[in-house]
């Protein structure tokens, strides 16, 4: 794999939110949502981020986009640090990194027509002038597979899949280098999911786009991603090449995730699987062990003593795993 400058880099992102449960006299207890996440995304590639609901993957997206303030950590856009920029300085850079949200219904202002939604940011940033903006909108709608006449309509006149196409068109309109896709297909029907995923893939090829794809559907993430990071309780527990990671999961949590995917083949119903017990959020009683240890079928006494670091896997330098017993046979 060629090692050029990453388009988007996250360095040790940390963010904690006040938790409702524990309250002290003056200060609320803080619950870490994102706890030291780092990754690089290279041009033209897709980095997939998977994990259960509440593992902090959407918070990562918000931190990257500057929608939430980082507690600590760094975000780089093509080598330039952007997390410390004042809002005014950041604004001219914003067109370069765009975001598509999960809920397409609330992503579009119900009182605006598609043409207003698409044209206003382009005109503001000077991507298109008033005489070229109509042609540019037609082009965008064509690229996302919608008839150009639809620009006269209001968002509620569209289906969920069509709305998501409009959101993608809006993200594309400013000619971004990278698009953060926060569960863009999770709210859609399976058949529509496939269409949107194909669209995203085609667009990536045509425009050499870079994606951060966040999802909990393993099929979708595997289909679209070149590299994948698996998150558990705010930490990256494993990352690596998509096919490799799916073929030989090294972290027991990744294995459990893969084993949890229902298989249509009846003959495989009794295959050996790791089945998770317990709930997300149970920390080891000792307070500082591996966060997955309480649910991990492979956990040993040493797992409860310290948090395993994300280390390259022996024999596969592109893979990193945060597990003491990584790579052992199940």
């Amino acid at each position, binding site marked *: 794999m060629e090692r050029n400058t990453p388009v988007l880099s996250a360095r040790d992102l940390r963010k904690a939110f006040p938790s409702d449960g524990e309250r002290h006299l003056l200060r609320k207890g803080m619950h870490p949502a994102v706890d030291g996440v780092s990754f690089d995304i290279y041009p033209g590639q897709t980095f997939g981020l998977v994990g259960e609901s509440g593992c902090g993957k959407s918070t990562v997206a918000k931190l990257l986009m*500057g929608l939430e303030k980082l507690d600590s950590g760094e975000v780089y856009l093509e080598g330039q640090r952007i997390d410390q920029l004042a809002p005014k300085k950041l604004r001219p850079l914003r*067109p370069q990194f765009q975001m598509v949200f999960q809920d397409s219904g*609330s992503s579009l202002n119900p009182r605006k027509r598609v043409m207003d939604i698409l044209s206003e*940011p382009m005109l503001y940033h000077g991507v298109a002038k008033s005489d070229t903006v109509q042609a540019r909108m037609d082009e965008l709608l064509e690229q996302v597979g919608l008839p150009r006449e639809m620009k006269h309509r209001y968002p509620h006149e569209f289906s969920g899949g069509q709305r998501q196409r409009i959101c993608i068109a809006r993200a594309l309109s400013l000619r971004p280098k990278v698009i953060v896709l926060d569960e863009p297909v999770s709210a859609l029907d399976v058949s529509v999911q496939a269409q949107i995923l194909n669209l995203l893939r085609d667009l990536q090829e045509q425009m050499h786009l870079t994606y951060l794809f966040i999802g909990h559907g393993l099929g979708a993430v595997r289909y679209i991603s070149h590299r994948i990071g698996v998150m558990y309780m705010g930490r990256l527990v494993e990352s690596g090449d998509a096919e490799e990671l799916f073929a030989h999961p090294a972290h027991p949590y990744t294995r459990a995730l893969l084993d949890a995917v229902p298989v249509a083949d009846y003959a495989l119903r009794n295959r050996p699987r790791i089945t998770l017990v317990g709930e997300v959020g149970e920390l080891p009683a000792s307070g500082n062990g591996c966060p997955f240890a309480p649910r991990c079928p492979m956990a040993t006494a040493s797992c409860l003593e310290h948090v395993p670091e994300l280390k390259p896997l022996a024999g596969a330098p592109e893979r990193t795993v945060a597990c003491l017993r990584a790579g052992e046979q199940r």
Partner: protein
Amino acid sequence: MQQSSFFVVARRFCKHRLAVVCLVILLALILLAVLAPWIAPYGPTKISGGFSKPPDAEHWLGTDQIGRDMFSRLLYAMRVSLLVGFLATLISTAIGVVLGLVSGYFGGWIDRVIMSFTDMVMSFPYILLVLVAAAIFEPGMWTMIVILGLVDWPGVARLVRGNVLSLRETNFCKSDITSGMPGRYILFSEILPNTLAPVLVYATSVFAISILDEAALSFLGMGVQPPTASLGNILNGAQSITVLTGKPWLWLPAGILIILLVMCINFVGDALRDALDPRGSL
């Protein structure tokens, strides 16, 4: 395009039969009030007949205690009441929208200061406030408009603030942020248009309440001063028991008009709320 969305709203509004009837009545009454100088058979202060005469062909609704034509006075009174209601609503809505937008959008200490002030104004027994103000300043129509305008805004401010807070968290506002759009665009192009419909609906109820308040204050003698007629100070004449029991033409029409106006405005407001919801059925 603009027109087609207007038609959509109009069509949805027409589904509420009662509201359509109310709107027609309301428009008719407003027309009567506006055209009062041309319709009224007599001047509002002109003494044209005997004292407290019951209705006849010359004076359709009779005459008041000093011989003025009741029908003419009612028309002019409606003018005054509607004007007070409308201007008071305009002032309070404007104040409420501005304070609500600022409070909700900027948050932090600005929000806390504005909202504390709002709660303060809200918790004050404002009839008392208006009475005191009317006592200090010269009571009259303009004083009353300003006073009502200055006390009716907290509801609007809270409504707008709440809307801004929830709209600020919507994905379309967030995608404006991620698109690098400036704050004024988000505030005036995304948030404000989405709060106007509920504000308009709320304003109709403020309008109705303002008319009631005007009537109450004028009834107490602290509002519009005679000889200018208002619906409230016409009712004032009904304080004596003989008038109340024996001469209903002196107070019944004014009372019915107040009820009609307030009721119609409220029904129209209700229908408007349904009609303006962009997610509603076509």
